[in-house]
């Protein structure tokens, strides 16, 4: 049995930012990492993926981008390099190749069992990622045998997709990026779009993240929104880490030749059924985008940003007059389905009564239970909590709480 005051599970941006915060407070701690630093970025993302946040925005405690391309977007190898460099710069103590098998409470301690031995700690930080496993709808079980299914954590590039049509289910950042990439690679692509949020990559000459960052949108706290459950469930914006295209929205995808259909409602007798609510999903998306852009305009007016071009006005989302409602897989048009239906954290090994009726971890701004913390989840404390840029502030706030807890117990 190994002993340490604090254990941190996960060595991505959240775990490393926490390590930095704990080291500053002289709190002894060890990070457990199932793979290597930045494991998810390294092994569970597709080849063409780039961060949705520009380089200048990828701030970590004690680190700021100093390269020459501050408006660029990092590839996955670059993110891996960033986090690996950060880990060594802050001398984080990391047990790599260490998968957590169970976490239990034993008296005043947490016992963490791993494939490389057991640990006992007074406080525990769960920093193993908001996108640890893909969420695949139950209807996937009804897909006919012979249709290939791919979850985005196993998707790498169009090369691995067999010839033939692809149905991409989900129209958030992952779904729209994969639909575009597969179409450009020559596949027949259909995209099933439920609720989604359209957003331009750049607006009035500035990156959309500049607007969200400077206007304070990203710093909005849990206490400032009236329905935090809804705010935590907001899908990722239809963006790609590519400044050359203003949109990767349903209009752009249709120009590329992607067929847009409604949300996948069901699969019955080998036929996929799509919701007839696509027009409303697109209308809601346009309204949300316009409302966000109008709020950015109002903010820019109120503080008087110099040298901004005039507000831009975007054409609404156009849809086919009668979007397809059904797809019979037996007709052979589609041979692959990609489930771009979201991600969830994975706490399957956490044997503690800390989950709600839907299996989500319950926390108050990251505090789960005495001495138990979670980091990196969507809107944990602020709207940027799941961004690299959000890890630092959350880690420092929770480290303060953690230190008070550890000292109270030790006293």
């Amino acid at each position, binding site marked *: 049995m190994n002993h340490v005051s604090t254990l941190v599970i996960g060595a991505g941006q959240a775990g490393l930012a926490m390590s930095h915060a704990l080291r500053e407070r002289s709190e002894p701690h060890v990070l457990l990492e199932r793979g290597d630093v930045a494991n998810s970025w390294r092994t569970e993302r597709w080849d063409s993926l780039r961060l949705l946040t520009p380089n200048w925005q990828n701030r970590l405690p004690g680190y700021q981008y100093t390269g020459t391309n501050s408006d660029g977007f990092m590839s996955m190898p670059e993110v891996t390099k960033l986090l690996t460099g950060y880990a060594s710069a802050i001398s984080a103590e990391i047990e790599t190749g260490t998968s957590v098998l169970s976490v239990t409470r034993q008296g005043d301690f947490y016992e963490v069992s791993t494939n490389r031995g057991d640990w006992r700690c007074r406080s525990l930080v769960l920093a193993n990622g908001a996108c640890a496993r893909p969420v695949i709808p139950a209807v996937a079980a009804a897909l006919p045998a012979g249709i290939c299914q791919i979850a985005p954590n196993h998707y790498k590039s169009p090369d691995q997709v067999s010839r033939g049509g692809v149905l991409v289910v989900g129209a958030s950042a992952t779904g729209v990026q994969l639909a575009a990439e597969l179409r450009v690679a020559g596949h027949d692509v259909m995209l099933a779009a439920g*609720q989604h949020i359209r957003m331009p990559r750049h607006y009035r000459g500035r990156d959309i993240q500049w607007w969200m960052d400077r206007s304070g949108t990203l710093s909005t706290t849990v*206490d*400032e*929104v*009236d329905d935090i459950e809804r705010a935590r469930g907001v899908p990722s914006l239809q963006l790609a880490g590519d400044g050359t295209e203003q949109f990767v929205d349903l209009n752009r995808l249709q120009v590329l030749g992607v067929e847009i259909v*409604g*949300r996948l*409602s*069901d699969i*019955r007798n080998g036929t996929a*059924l799509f*919701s*007839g*609510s696509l027009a*409303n999903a697109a*209308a*809601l998306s346009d*309204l949300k985008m*316009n*409302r966000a852009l109008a709020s950015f305009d109002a903010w820019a007016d109120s503080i008087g940003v110099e040298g901004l071009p005039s507000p831009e006005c975007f054409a609404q989302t156009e849809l086919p007059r*009668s979007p397809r409602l059904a797809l019979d897989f037996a007709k052979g048009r589609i041979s692959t389905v990609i489930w771009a239906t979201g991600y969830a954290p994975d706490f399957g090994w956490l044997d503690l009564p800390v989950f709600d*009726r839907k299996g989500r971890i319950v926390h108050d701004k990251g505090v789960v239970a005495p001495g138990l913390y979670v980091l990196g989840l969507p809107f944990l404390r602020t709207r940027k909590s799941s961004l690299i840029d959000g890890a630092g502030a959350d880690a420092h706030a929770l480290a303060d709480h953690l230190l008070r807890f550890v000292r109270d117990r030790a006293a």
Partner: protein
Amino acid sequence: MNVQTIINANNGVDTQALINARGAFEQMPEAAHFTFRSKAEWIEGTYSVNRIDGYFGLGQEHSRKRSFAIESDHPEVFHAADRAPSPPEIVLSALASCLIGGVASVAQHRGIQLRSVRAKVEGDLDVKGILGMDAEIRNGFSAIRVSFDIDADASAEDIAAIVAQSQKRSAVFDILTNPTNVNVSVA
């Protein structure tokens, strides 16, 4: 922003009660399971009458204030007596009423006073489907259009947002746009 807006709008919807219900169902999710029912009886020809007098919800049976009747028949062109609207027309009316109720609730929640709300609902139906003349043609509506005419103290964009939100939260809109398992048995 967690701003408690002073709401002067009165559309006759108690949104606070709905918000309270959300809180209560969060504590007791099983209480949110409702079963609605309608009991129909054939009278003659295509003429029938539904009685709606009770439902199950909040863990128990409830009676309505009175027994409501919904009659249905077919128009004369189908050689019926045209004593009441046809079932598909009742579906269209249910959609209109569901969306209008949603518009009133969402407007109330957003502090917007409504002066008038009118909806026209149209459904296209090729009767060659019902008559079994062409297997390619479905029995039901091939398309449904709803057009709203709303007079309210709000911008065109705010009104569009209310209408969009009412669709997002409408039972009948969902029933019509997504498949439902329907089991029919004989006693």
